[in-house]
């Protein structure tokens, strides 16, 4: 497969995936046990609605038409950037998402920075001192980091740093001080994953011929490690970090609840409990599309950055 063909093939499969994503997102509302219109009305008014009220509401939402027609309408609106509006506040879903997005992005970026700041030095040291104490300690630390529920870590941080030491606020948003604890809570789990990755990647590179070559030329060990090995080890790390977006989003939902940050996660969970389906569908769609686009970009960047990658060989 030439690289143009590969680009076309990947774009095509991404398109297929997006169509599937839209069907699933649209279909979510029909997973509701019973009649969605009735369920929503009960939720809104807190009492069993009359038959006429349900009929009227169903017509208002367009739920009385055949499902394929509803889907076609929904997709048409979505493609025009219209995600509908909330059942409760009548505000546009896009507006709600844009309002809650900055808090989540802020948290995600801060967590990524913390994760990399911990993971890269630890992973490199661990690989260079393979089998020594520092390696064992860091690997054990990474294992514990992966095993820790991040919402519990969040509470631990609150108890120690907010309640006892009174260094940071307990919850909410505001300046940088509100960001520190949630970012640590979210970033630690990611740091654990990335540390293992950096270590594996470094170990692979250290064993390669060109590193031995650099060594046998008599180069200083530090230059060998940090100039020759580290640079080459970084490529797979960068791409996988790109793919950690899903991990960040998964974690952000829970962390936002722990620290009561008004981000996308809190918006999503509130909408789920309120059965505010346009909001749920909008957020799920935005997240999935971002995710597909990121994966495509990482995949294409990867093949471009490292010409040794056999095109198409990674899809199996």
């Amino acid at each position, binding site marked *: 497969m030439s690289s143009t063909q590969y680009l076309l093939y990947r774009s095509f*499969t991404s398109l*297929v*995936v*997006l169509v*599937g*994503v839209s069907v*699933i997102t649209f279909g*979510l*509302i029909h*997973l*509701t*046990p019973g009649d969605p219109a009735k369920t929503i009305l009960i939720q809104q008014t807190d009492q069993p609605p009359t038959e006429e009220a349900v009929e009227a509401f169903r017509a208002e939402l367009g739920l009385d038409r055949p499902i394929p027609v509803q889907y076609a309408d929904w997709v048409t609106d979505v493609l025009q950037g219209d995600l509908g509006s909330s059942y409760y506040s009548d505000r546009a879903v896009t507006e709600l998402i844009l309002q809650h997005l900055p808090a989540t992005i802020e948290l995600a970026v801060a967590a990524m920075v913390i994760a990399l700041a911990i993971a890269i030095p630890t992973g490199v040291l661990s690989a260079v001192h393979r089998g020594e104490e520092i390696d064992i300690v860091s690997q054990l630390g990474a*294992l*514990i980091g*992966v*095993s*820790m*529920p991040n*919402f*519990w*870590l969040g*509470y*631990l941080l*609150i*108890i120690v740093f907010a*309640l006892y030491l009174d260094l940071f606020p307990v919850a909410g948003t505001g300046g940088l001080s509100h960001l520190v604890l949630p970012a640590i809570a979210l970033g630690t789990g990611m740091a654990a*994953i990335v540390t*293992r990755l950096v270590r*594996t990647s470094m170990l692979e590179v250290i064993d390669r011929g060109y590193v031995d070559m650099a060594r046998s030329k008599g180069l200083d060990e530090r230059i060998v490690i940090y100039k020759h090995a580290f640079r080459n080890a970084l490529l797979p790390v960068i791409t996988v970090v790109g793919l950690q*977006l*899903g*991990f960040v*989003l*998964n974690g952000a*939902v*829970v962390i936002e*609840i722990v620290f009561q940050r008004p981000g996308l996660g809190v918006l*999503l*969970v509130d909408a*789920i*409990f309120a*059965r505010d389906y346009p909001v*749920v569908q909008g957020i*799920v769609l935005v*997240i*999935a599309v971002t*995710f*597909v686009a990121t*994966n495509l970009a990482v995949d294409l960047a990867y093949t471009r950055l490292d010409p040794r990658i056999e095109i198409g060989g990674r899809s*199996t």
Partner: protein
Amino acid sequence: MSTVDEIEQTTPWERGVATLLTVWRELRSNPLALAGAIIVAVLGVVAILGPALISQDPTAQQLGYRLQSPSLAHPFGTDHLGRDVLTRIVYGARYSLGIALAVTGIRVFLGTVVGLIAGYVGGFIDEALMRLVDIQLAFPGLILALVVAGVLGPSLRNVMIALAIVGWTTYARVVRSEVLSVREREYVAAARLVGIPTHRLLTRHLLPSVVNPVLVIATLNLGTVVLATAGLSFIGLGAQPPTPEWGTMLAEGRAYLRRAWWIVNAPGIAIMLTVLGFNLLGDGLRDALDPTQQTRVEEV
């Protein structure tokens, strides 16, 4: 171990014994894996026998004993309703391990069936099934599970359904690629030529080669399911109060962080130890049974 002669001549029983021996040797030489196995074994015993050994009711409220700090009578303290936290942790082990086993079992079954079919039949069916996997992977796992469970309605059963739907794709991929690599081997071609029917070919000749990787992933997966179940219950979608489920207990402790730190920390430690146990054991199993596989399961 997967040449045609050996597989034809050994019974599943003998193969099972051989696998156990390999695992046993690994546990004896790898202290971390042994630690994991011990944690998992202890948890299993606690989950099965614990409730029978404890006379207290996990939901019994003793309002006169609210928010008692850890003591001899209440080693992990009491919560805001005067319930003994240790008792609730012990009962919670049943929920966590039971759900983890059930969800992982369904995932393994779904994923193995899809992977076998995709890998063996190939062609259009393969392409369609793999696109289905891609579509599923387009959603961050926990978020999809969250939405599915939320739409179905908050309950432990719905959380199990949601997590089972979300997590089978890893198995499908692994089984498929394993089948693809085995399918073209001579012994499978030979078996086909001799006229062995397809279902027998799949179960006797292709399935044995996927057992080890699936076993490794499933062990690691048990830990992630424990985390995800606790997370969804924490959000309020899974177990509902007064169920003694670890994630629910953590959520209930939120209001008492300052006065009663033990309410959130006891279930937090319980979850961490459980996941750590499965991770240590899973890493050990991989070294023993499937050393070529380097990728870890980081999905939900």
